């Protein structure tokens, strides 16, 4: 069995806005969501830069027991999931009567784990940790909480694949629906935003130090880039069998037509063009499209010297001389890490539906390695049919997703 897989709802909670309308406006305006968190300096960070993501107020929607079990990233994911189901026309009655699955990318619960550990040291009694701690501290905090809140009864697990987590969750949902094992899956990615979870990443000296110009700090593919900016939030997509979506009269936003994956098999933090190319080629082959069919590429590029260079080489290998326009929305969002692969699919579909390409802001002087590629340095009005979204992560886990406008 091979079925078509479509997206019928999307939701987003990020440093670019708390819903699709706000985020679309930010993407079109090329507005950065990056700022500084002075606390980070006080506690020993070398960079205070971060995506500024507000904490949602969940009291109007959820009771104490539900809220008490949620970590930061779970709260962001809930807001995104709520918006996605609403757009998809899936309400509580539908969820009680039909089997819907959930697959989310998440790869840390740093704050919840550290706070629980600190409290244990202080109180020396596990009975004083409270009932919510365990459900906040597990990597599957997002899927275990959202499946409970929304009464989800289909596939239910979390995908941890570093900065490709969100993208692989979309890829896995695509495969399960394509094969006829599920009709509807809520897929997405979530990323906590707090100093505790990012300290060890800061310790790799991987973050930009351009702290006097926060909105100019993230500059993927620019010659003068000096590191990434950690960020986060929640992104959710209702993915569905095409015939199922048509039968229930859902609005179809886009089709997922290709999923490609690969692993570099090299050093733990070493980017590799060869592995990235294999993931992209696999996705294009799965989609049945040629490199020259691709209108827009949402690059993984995080603004690190080595990572962007490797991706530029991979993209040059496949897309030099072709029509594809490239931008990295991380120039505005910073690196949304475990969420990024899912949020960038949301951003890409928003561009697709609103006929524009969001700019790769701060690209003032293109890196030598990227000189043969076509970048959107400013917002471009453009009809997009085929879009490719890349995600690469620590350990060499690569993911590419191909989307088609409907």
């Amino acid at each position, binding site marked *: 069995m091979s079925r078509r897989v479509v997206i019928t709802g999307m939701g987003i909670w990020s440093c670019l806005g708390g819903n699709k309308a706000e985020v679309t406006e930010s993407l079109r305006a090329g507005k950065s969501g990056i700022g500084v968190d002075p606390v980070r300096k006080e506690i020993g960070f070398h960079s205070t830069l971060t995506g500024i993501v507000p904490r949602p107020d969940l009291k109007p929607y959820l009771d*104490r027991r539900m809220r008490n079990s949620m970590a930061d990233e779970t709260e962001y994911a809930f807001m995104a999931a709520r918006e996605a189901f609403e757009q998809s026309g899936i309400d509580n009655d539908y969820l009680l009567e039909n089997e819907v699955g959930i697959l989310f990318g998440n790869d840390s619960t740093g704050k919840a784990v550290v706070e629980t550990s600190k409290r244990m040291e202080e109180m020396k009694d596990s*009975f004083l940790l*409270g009932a919510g701690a365990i459900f906040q501290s597990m990597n599957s905090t997002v899927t275990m909480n959202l499946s409970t809140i929304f009464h989800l009864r289909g596939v239910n697990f979390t995908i941890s694949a570093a900065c490709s987590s969100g993208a692989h969750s979309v890829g896995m949902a695509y495969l399960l629906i394509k094969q006829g094992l599920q009709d509807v899956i809520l897929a997405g990615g979530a990323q906590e935003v707090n100093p505790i979870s990012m300290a060890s990443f800061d310790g790799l000296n991987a973050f930009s130090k351009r702290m006097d110009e926060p909105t100019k700090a993230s500059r993927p593919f620019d010659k003068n880039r000096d590191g990434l900016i950690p960020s986060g939030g929640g992104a959710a997509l209702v993915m569905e069998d095409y015939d199922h979506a048509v039968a229930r009269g859902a609005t179809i936003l886009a089709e997922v037509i290709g999923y490609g994956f690969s692993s570099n098999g090299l050093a733990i933090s070493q980017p590799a063009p060869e592995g990235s190319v294999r993931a992209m080629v696999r996705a294009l082959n799965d989609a049945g499209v040629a490199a020259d069919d691709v209108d827009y590429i949402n690059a993984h590029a995080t603004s690190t010297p080595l990572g962007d260079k490797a991706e530029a080489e991979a993209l040059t290998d496949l897309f030099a001389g072709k029509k594809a326009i490239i931008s990295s929305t991380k120039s505005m969002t910073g690196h949304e890490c475990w969420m990024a692969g899912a949020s960038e699919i949301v951003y890409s579909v928003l561009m697709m539906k609103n006929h524009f390409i969001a700019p790769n802001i701060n690209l003032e002087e293109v890196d030598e390695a990227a000189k043969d590629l076509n970048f959107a340095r400013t917002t471009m009005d453009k009809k997009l049919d085929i879009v490719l979204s890349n995600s690469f992560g620590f350990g060499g886990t690569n993911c590419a997703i191909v989307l088609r406008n409907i």
Partner: protein
Amino acid sequence: MQSYYEIYNNKQFYMERVEIDQKVKDFLVSEFEIDESAIKPEARLREDIGIDSLDFVDIIVIVDRTFGFRIVPEELKNVVTLEDFCNYIDKKVNK
């Protein structure tokens, strides 16, 4: 300022029953978002007020903070109503 726990350990502690009842009512309303109208002495904690097994874990934390002693779960075996619960706290705090 000494905490309740320190005062209790120094055996200088006494809390009026009316104060215990009020503090329990306060945390049920503020922390557990229980409707005030449901909070009656004869109300059963599980069936009428809706406290479940996970809520009891949070109650241990709140009682430690509010009354300065640590609940031993086994001691709650015979606690059914809100009045039983306040009696239990009274006994522990004012023994």
